[in-house]
């Protein structure tokens, strides 16, 4: 860098730091989020509407990259004593946030500033996932749950009826027919751990970790290598070996297969509807259904993923009032229904669900209803209220690593799950040791 360029930079930095904007009277609220693409535009839309609705506060929505990147940015900023007011954190970061001591619980924020929100209007799975002692710790924002998708064109080609499979036996039988008909990816899935391990355990009322999946204290032991987990993995390992299950990679990488129109049956987040609608337009037709069930195990419920908005400690009292006002705005039925309608995320309140129903939104977009109906048909038990683990992101990664060893045939289902449990427990115990 030349000296003059450096000089300009230094001068600019001094200017920016030295003269806080005095022309704007409104208080600025920093809102860091991880929404990209269309979702990023929607976030900007809702903040712009809020900013236009009043003149005391200006919410600045800033995209900070992926979920882990956003969380890391917030951590770095907090440690530098410059935290954003609001940060969007993915569901696996929930325990990390709860333990951090850096958070202003949202129920307290609202009652401190005398804003009344009917928390009981929140749908059960969302309220339970993000509450401690019955009180909401973070502001529910974007939640989804996995559902099943199927490619109707491939079904027709394989001579299958236009109906989603409802059990894993049916998935296997149909996938084999799809395979015989030349479909490259008869059955596939994204988010291997979230959909096929975490959700399958909850969906069949099986424990995922000790202490009610971490809701009754810090969990230290994974329970995924029990008879259910092993049976589920054996089924998938058989599918991978026989060629009717195509593994598409970790996190959401597998979605590329479904998007490209190669999969017959596919499981992933309900928030994928938007992408699929756009990708499939004019290329193939598709339908949705509930997650498949494994015969012989009880009914639980699918659990949610997504993110919530956390309020960070360290800002001025006057600024928190703006945050509370912003949340009140977000929580209105009108905005909740709008957000769910344009994004495909679950409506978070019962009144928003009713509003969407009444406006005919679900009649026009029946696939958005699938996730809602699936969650309403399930049973909330200690095993299906959610999963709250310390360093959950690392635990999930350890599980996906072993799933790959199982699907490639390097390890048996039991061996792979045992190894995932050993590694997962080590991570959980480290976290527990930190906060003992």
């Amino acid at each position: 860098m030349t000296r003059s360029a450096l000089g300009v930079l230094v001068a600019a930095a001094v200017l920016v730091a030295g003269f806080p904007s005095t022309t704007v009277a409104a208080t600025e609220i920093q809102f860091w989020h991880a929404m990209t693409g269309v979702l990023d535009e929607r976030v900007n839309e809702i903040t712009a509407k809020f900013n236009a609705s009043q003149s005391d506060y200006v919410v600045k929505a800033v995209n900070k990259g992926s979920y882990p990147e956003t969380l890391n940015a917030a951590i770095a900023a907090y440690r530098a004593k410059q935290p954003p007011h609001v940060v969007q954190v993915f569901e696996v970061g929930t325990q990390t946030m709860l333990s951090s001591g850096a958070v202003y619980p949202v129920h307290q924020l609202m009652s401190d500033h005398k804003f009344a929100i009917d928390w009981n209007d929140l749908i059960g799975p969302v309220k339970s996932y993000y509450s401690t002692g019955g009180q909401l710790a973070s502001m529910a924002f974007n939640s989804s749950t996995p559902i099943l998708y199927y490619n109707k064109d491939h079904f027709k080609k394989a001579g299958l009826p236009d109906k989603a499979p409802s059990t894993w036996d049916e998935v296997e039988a149909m996938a084999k027919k799809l395979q015989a008909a030349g479909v490259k990816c008869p059955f596939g899935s994204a988010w291997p751990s979230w959909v096929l391990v975490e959700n399958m355990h909850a969906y069949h009322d099986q424990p995922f970790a000790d202490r009610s999946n971490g809701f009754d204290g810090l969990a230290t032991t994974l329970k995924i290598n029990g008879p259910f987990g092993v049976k589920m993995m054996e089924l998938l390992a058989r599918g991978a070996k026989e060629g009717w299950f195509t593994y598409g990679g970790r996190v959401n990488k597998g979605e590329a297969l479904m998007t490209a129109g190669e999969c017959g049956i596919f499981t992933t987040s309900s928030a994928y509807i938007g992408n699929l609608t756009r990708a499939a337009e004019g290329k193939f037709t598709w339908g949705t259904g509930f997650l498949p069930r494994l015969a012989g195990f009880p009914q639980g419920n699918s659990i949610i993923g997504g993110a919530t908005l956390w309020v960070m400690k360290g800002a001025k009292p006057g600024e928190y009032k703006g945050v509370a006002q912003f949340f009140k705005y977000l929580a209105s039925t009108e905005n909740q229904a709008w957000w769910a309608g344009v994004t495909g995320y679950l409506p978070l309140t019962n009144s928003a669900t009713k509003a969407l129903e009444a406006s005919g939104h679900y009649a026009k977009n029946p696939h958005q209803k699938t996730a809602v109906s699936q969650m309403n048909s399930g049973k909330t038990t200690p095993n299906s209220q959610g999963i709250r683990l310390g360093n959950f992101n690392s635990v999930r990664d350890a599980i996906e690593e072993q799933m790959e060893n199982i699907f490639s045939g390097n390890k048996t289902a039991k061996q792979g799950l045992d190894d995932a449990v050993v590694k997962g427990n080590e991570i959980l115990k480290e976290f527990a040791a930190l906060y003992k």
Partner: protein
Amino acid sequence: MKRTVFRNRWLPYALVAPQVAITIVFFFWPAFDSLRLSLYRASPFGDRLIFIGGGNFVRLLGDPAYFRSAATSFGFSLFVTFIGLALALLLASLANAKIRGLAIYRTLLLWPYGIAPAVAGVIWLFVFHPSFGVLPYLLSFVTAYQFNWFLKGWVALTLIVIAAIWKQFGYNLAFYLAGLQAIPGSVLEAASVDGAGPIRRFFAITFPLLSPVTFFLVTLNMTFAFFDTFGLVHAVTQGGPGDATSILVYRAWKDGFDGLQLGYSAAQSVILMLLVIALTAVQFRYAEKKVTY
């Protein structure tokens, strides 16, 4: 050697000060901070900092996966360095010949270096993708073998080796080209007169005279493979399948950044730091003796 004399006593210090300051702020400070942090169990938000002495190191060295990861890293950097340098030298020799359009060839060959590792990874991801990649499609005409790197470890490792070599190729080539052009033509001509063929000339004259460049590039490529490739791994394989491509630097990054286990990650960086110091020291101590300057 010409000795420069400064009349002002302080001027030389003032001139090196910026470089020293940058080294301290961006190298020594973080390095010492990692060293300190590696002795602690640290919470993400910094509210808990528990001294555990060598606890992080005990945990690391008691984990067979860490040794697998070390073996993968060494194998990976050896492949990247030696195949990469051999190819670069071969193409540099060709690009050094007097042919038409040489400038264009050279520019094209240098190009990949301008690409970030993560982007290089994504490009190769598209080439290799089991479902919509060009290469698996072409290979399907030759063999029925499924090159699915989502599940086959060796395919995944080969893929990132190729991507890393490709990414570093332009850089290596540039240095070899410069080295080749610095070799006096008279020496090569004398050898020709003495009856040495092109291969004999290469091994008796060109290669030994290039040894300083080779030495520099080996050190640099090993370091590149050890440190700079996490973007590549992150974009393509995320360390998988299983832990087949989980090289040391990627593990350290993932445990720290994704896993927020800061002390544990710092301990891994410390080990990496020691490894690279050792690697460089060994190279300077033994390899340098064989180098002709």
